[in-house]
């Protein structure tokens, strides 16, 4: 993996003003993947949006890590259902136009 696809956890935590332990905890709950390169811990830049979301949920709404785990899984299901509804709506429109 290219280093440009990664952001060091230290940089991330400084920028977002969150403790390193929070990121470690997210990894323990398998909510994010940490990449280790040259003894430095990184997260993938593609995961930043998700981590940002978890930061908001944890620090703004006081949702604990067990809750985050549950919420995160439900949100994924919700988003996939929303995609399915959109696809079905488009399909329905296709048949209504026929």
């Amino acid at each position, binding site marked *: 993996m290219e280093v440009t696809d990664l952001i060091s956890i230290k940089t991330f935590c400084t920028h977002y003003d969150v403790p390193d332990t929070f990121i470690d905890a997210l990894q323990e709950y398998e909510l994010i993947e940490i990449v280790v390169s040259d003894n430095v811990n990184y997260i993938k830049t593609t995961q930043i949006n998700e981590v940002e979301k978890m930061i908001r*949920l944890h620090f*703004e*709404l006081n949702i604990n890590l067990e809750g985050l785990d549950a919420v995160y899984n439900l*949100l994924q299901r919700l988003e996939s259902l929303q995609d399915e509804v*959109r*696809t079905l709506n488009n399909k329905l*429109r*296709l048949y209504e136009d*026929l």
Partner: protein
Amino acid sequence: MAFIDYYKTLGISKTASDKDIKKAYRKLARKYHPDLNPNDKDAEKKFKAINEANEVLSNPENRKKFDAYGEHWQNAEAFEQAKQQQQQQRAYQGQAGNYSEKDFEDIFGNMFGGQASGRGGREVRFRGQDFNAELQLALKEVYQPHKRTLTVNNKNIRITIPAGVENGQTIKIKGHGGKGVNGGPNGDLYIQFSIQNHSKFKRDKDNLYTTVELDLYTAMLGGDMMVDTFNGKVKLTIKPETQNGLKVKLKGKGFPKYKKEGQFGDLYITYQLKTPTHLTEKEKELFTQLQKLR
């Protein structure tokens, strides 16, 4: 603007303690937070309303002003000053005029132009609000990557819309929403696409569907014909004895696959048999002969 009762917004009484306010806010925030309600505009509106209510009621000074002046709480200081000035004037002029709240409202309307003034006293960093926009595009515009310049908050944003985007799909443009408060990050801009299809092709994800009229003789004897695809014509070989309603697939002649450059769906063509009309006597005779052969 209609008066918003912040107590009602948070579902609490006017005598609620700070702890009650905090509890009610947290409960409602968990219910309506945009992260927990993706693509739900109603939830977003409610979340903004409860945030506003919490900002006012969780600040003791603002709460006091809100309790005393209701919808004019933001102008409380000016209200007090104006009231004092009016009293001084009345005392000076020896008049006992009766000024209603409406009079003060007029004064403030003039002073502030009817606009809400800024609210101070926030200590917490807040992420800016997310903006939502709808962009209407024709189907042919999303057949290829499409560049658009949008104006958001007087700033021009140049975006490239990937080919194959679907009707109703939303993309996020990070950091182009409302400004963060107290150093908080900016919100995001969400653009939902409304794809108008004025073509003769029906679209289902990356597959396209169309109907082609087939004359009787080509259907019976076979032959070649030119058919329209979304981006040009192709020659199609019709097999002899092709039946009405038969569907054929033209692989890779459909719509581009979203974010998969160079990959396309398929085009499904349904043959619609067109029988000849206004037959001549000779044609009728020949058809009768054919009928007798079967």
